[in-house]
């Protein structure tokens, strides 16, 4: 990391340096950070091609939540990996309510794939598990505030 910062200071405007740093920390949370860093060291060119061109750099913060926003710098999909696949999840247990709770919003609705970043298979498992959990009252069908209002 020290090396790349060095390079930024000498060769590039500082604004861009900040951009790439922010990005790598964001990747951290998704666990594919290792790739990113090594492509910074510009050995792995194929990786670099896929990820590091201009449009990606801007607006990479917001579009986790707002993926419908038109991206500046051309159409670009960051390739994101299903976390369930990364962890090689074979099944999702409906009893693990605290896990499933992460994948419903405050109104109790199942988050769409663009929010969960799950692949089709795991999204199916996830939604099935959530529905089972709802049936046995481990998860709510609706948010508390919705229920209170309607009685």
């Amino acid at each position, binding site marked *: 990391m020290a090396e790349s910062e060095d390079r930024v200071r000498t060769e590039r405007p500082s604004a861009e340096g900040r951009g790439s740093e922010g990005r790598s920390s964001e990747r951290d949370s998704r666990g594919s950070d290792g790739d990113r860093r090594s492509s910074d060291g510009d050995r792995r060119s194929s990786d670099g091609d896929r990820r590091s061109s201009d449009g990606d750099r801007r607006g990479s913060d917001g579009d986790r939540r707002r993926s419908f926003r038109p991206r500046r710098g051309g159409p670009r999909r960051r390739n994101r990996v299903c976390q369930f696949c990364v962890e090689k999840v*074979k*099944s999702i247990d*409906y*009893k693990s*309510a605290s896990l499933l709770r992460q994948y419903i919003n405050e109104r109790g609705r199942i988050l769409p794939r663009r929010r969960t970043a799950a692949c089709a298979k795991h999204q199916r498992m996830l939604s099935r598990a959530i529905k*089972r959990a*709802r*049936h*046995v*009252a*481990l*998860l*709510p*069908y*609706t948010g508390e505030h919705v*229920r209170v209002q309607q009685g």
Partner: protein
Amino acid sequence: MRTYELMLIAEPELDEEALAALTERIQQVITNNGGAIVSVEQMGRRKLAYPIQRRREGHYVLVHANLERETISELERSLRLSEDVFRHLLVRLDEVEEAEAQAPAPETPEAS
């Protein structure tokens, strides 16, 4: 014969004795109809995520059992009739185990 998981939610007013009697009855239904109990776990009294007919809590019981098709229909019937059980969920468990049984043998060319 497949392995199933049964989760049932019983009336919160039941005391320990009544709860034990209830689980005993359920086990009877299973074994008398050609099923075999694998395990029974009391998950305790828990708060429901939403009220079910004014109830805010329930005793959760988890049963793993090997069941035949006929056993299932009989079990479901008695669960619906039981006044102590107000909600139940019966799901097949062996989907997972089959997948896991196939997974540790990646040497065979037909995998994936």
